[in-house]
C-alpha cells in the first residue's frame, strides 16, 4: 500500500512542474473557440452524429405530431380492440383500438419534455449548488451539503403527493418536482469535481491574477467539470423519464388518455405475452432514443475534453 501511495505522490509532484494548464486559461478566455473546436471534433465522430441526427428526427416528429399523426391519441375503436400491426395501423392498436404509432408520437412529446425540463432544472440547480459548495468550501460547503443530505432523506412520495395536493395537478409541476429531486446527485458530483479542480495550478493562477470568484467558477471550474456533468446528464435523462412513468403509473403524474413512453411501456409489460407489439414498439423507441442520447453525450464529452485534444 505504501508503495502505491508513494508512487502517486511522485506522480503528483511531477505534475506541478508542468504548465499545460495555463494554456487552457487562454483558450477559455476566448470562449467561442472551445465550442467551435468541439463542434469540429464532434463532426469527426460518426456515432455521435448519428445519435444527434436520430434525436433531431424524433424531436421533429414529436413536435409535428398534431399535423402528421394518422389518428387522434384518444380516438378509440372498441370493436377493433387490440390488433397487431396492419396497413391501417402500422404499429398496431391497444385494447381500446387506439393507434399505437399516434400514441408513441404523442407520448414522445411528454417524455422528451420531461427529459428536457426536469434535467435542465436538475442541471441548473445541481451545477450551481455543487460548484459553489465545492469552491467556497468550509462552513458554507458543510451547510449546503447537509441540506442536500436532508432532501435526500425525505420521503419522496409523500413530498410529491403533497405537491399535487397543494398546487393541484399540473404537468409543469411534475417536471419541476422531478428536477427538484434529481439535482441532488448532480450537486454531489460537481462539488467533488470542483474540489479537486480548485487545487490545480490553473485555478490558483487565475486567483493570483485577481479574477473574481464568480468568474473563476464560471470560466474555469464549470467548463472543466463539464465532462462528468455531461455524462451524468445523459444518465439523468433516462432516469427522469422513468421516474415520470413510475409516478404516472402510481397516479401521481400525467392523466390518461395522455401518455408517455414510460407509461406505454409499463402498460405494455402487463400484457407482453398477449399483445407483444404494445411493448416492443414503445420499448424500441425509448431504447433507441436513449442510445442516441448517450452516444451524443459521449461524443460531446470527448469533444469538450480539452486535455484529451492536446494529446
Amino acid at each position: 500500500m505504501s508503495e502505491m501511495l508513494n508512487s502517486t505522490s511522485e506522480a503528483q509532484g511531477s505534475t506541478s512542474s508542468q504548465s499545460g494548464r495555463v494554456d487552457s486559461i487562454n483558450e477559455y478566455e476566448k470562449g467561442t473557440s472551445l465550442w467551435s473546436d468541439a463542434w469540429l471534433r464532434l463532426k469527426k465522430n460518426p456515432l455521435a452524429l448519428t445519435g444527434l441526427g436520430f434525436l433531431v428526427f424524433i424531436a421533429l416528429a414529436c413536435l409535428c405530431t398534431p399535423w402528421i399523426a394518422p389518428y387522434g391519441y384518444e380516438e378509440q375503436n372498441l370493436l377493433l380492440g387490440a390488433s397487431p400491426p396492419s396497413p391501417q395501423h402500422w404499429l398496431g392498436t391497444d385494447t381500446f383500438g387506439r393507434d399505437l404509432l399516434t400514441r408513441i408520437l404523442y407520448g414522445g412529446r411528454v417524455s422528451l419534455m420531461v427529459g428536457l425540463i426536469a434535467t435542465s432544472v436538475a442541471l441548473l440547480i445541481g451545477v450551481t449548488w455543487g460548484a459553489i459548495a465545492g469552491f467556497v468550501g468550509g462552513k458554507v460547503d458543510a451547510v449546503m451539503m447537509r441540506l442536500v443530505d436532508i432532501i435526500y432523506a425525505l420521503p419522496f412520495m409523500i413530498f410529491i403527493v403533497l405537491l399535487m395536493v397543494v398546487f393541484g395537478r399540473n404537468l409543469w409541476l411534475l417536471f419541476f418536482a422531478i428536477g427538484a429531486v434529481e439535482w441532488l446527485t448532480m450537486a454531489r458530483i460537481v462539488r467533488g469535481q470542483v474540489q479537486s479542480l480548485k487545487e490545480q495550478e490553473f485555478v490558483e493562477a487565475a486567483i493570483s491574477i485577481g479574477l473574481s470568484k464568480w468568474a473563476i467558477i464560471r470560466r474555469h471550474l464549470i467548463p472543466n467539470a463539464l465532462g462528468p456533468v455531461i455524462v451524468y446528464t445523459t444518465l439523468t435523462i433516462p432516469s427522469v423519464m422513468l421516474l415520470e412513468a413510475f409516478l404516472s403509473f402510481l397516479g401521481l403524474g400525467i392523466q390518461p388518455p395522455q401518455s408517455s413512453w414510460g407509461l406505454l411501456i409499463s402498460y405494455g409489460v402487463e400484457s407482453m405475452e398477449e399483445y407483444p407489439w404494445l411493448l416492443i414498439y414503445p420499448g424500441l423507441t425509448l431504447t433507441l432514443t436513449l442510445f442516441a442520447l448517450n452516444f451524443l453525450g459521449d461524443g460531446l464529452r470527448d469533444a469538450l475534453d480539452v486535455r484529451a485534444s492536446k494529446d
Partner: protein
Amino acid sequence: MLNFILSRSMQSIPVIFVVITITFFLVRFAPGGPFDDEKSVEPEVKAALEAQYRLDQPLFSQYAAYLGDLAQGDLGPSFKYPGRSVNELIATGFPVTAELGLYAILIALCIGGISGVVAALKPNTAQDYVPMSLAMLGICMPTFLLGPLLILVFGIWLEWLPVSGWGDLPGDKILPSFTLGAAYAAYVARLSRGGMLEVMSQDYIRTARAKGLPERVVVLKHGLRGGMIPVVAYLGPAFAGILSGSFVIETIFQIHGLGRFYVQAAFNRDYTMILGCTVFLATLIVVFNLLSDLLAAWMNPRLRSQLGGNQ
C-alpha cells in the same frame, strides 16, 4: 482524518433531526389518514382508534412524545399492522433489501467496472462501443421492463429459475439481483469510462509511463485509483438509492424487503412506519455519503494530503 470524521458525524445529528421534524409534520398534511378506508369508519370508532395511537393529542405533544420514544430506540407501533412494531418491520425488511442491494452493487461493479475500464483504454473503437452499448442497455431498459423479461425467459420459458420469492426456493435470488444490478452496472460503466479517460490523459500518468513503468502498473495502480473516483462518489448515493429504490424489484419479485414496506407505508399513511423508515434511511444515507466521501478523499491524492497530512 479523525477530525474530519468527527466533524461530519457532528454535522449529521442536526441533519437527522431536521429530517425527522420535516417528515413528522409533512406526513400529517398529506390528505387521508391511516384509518380511512373504502367503507367509512364511524366517528366513535375513529376516535377510539386515534386514542390508541395518541393521535388525539395536540400535534406538538405527539411530536415531543415521538422524540422521547426515539431517544430510547423505540419507533412505535405500526398503524397498518396493529400487532407489529416499526422496529420489527424494519428488522425484517432491512436485511433482505441490504442483501439484495449488496449483490446488485457487486454485480454492477463487476460488469460495469470492467466494461467501463476496457472501453476507456481504446476510446472510439469497437472495444469501446461494444461493452458500452451493452452497458447502456441497462440504463435504457427500465427495471419494470427488464425484470418481467428475465422472468419470462428464465422463469417461464426455460424454467431454470423461480419467478418470485427471496430465500424461499433455491436460486430465487438470482433474477432480482441481476435486474437491480443491471441498472447500476450501466451507471458504473459510464462513470468509470469517463473517469478513466480523464485520468489516463493526466500528466502523472504520462510521467509514470515515461518512467518506464509497465502499462499494467500504470493502469491498475495509477489509472484505476483516479479513474474510480467518480464511481466511488456515486456508490454512496447509489447504495442509499438502492435501499429506498428497490421497491419496483421487490414488488415484481414479491420480496419482503424494506423498499416495499416504505412505499406501502407512504400509501397507507402509516405515520410511524414512514417516520421510522425515514429516520433509519436518513441515518444510512448520512453514513454512506460520509463513507463515500472518505473513500473518494483517500483515492484523490491532493485531498488526501489535505485531510490526513500524515504522508
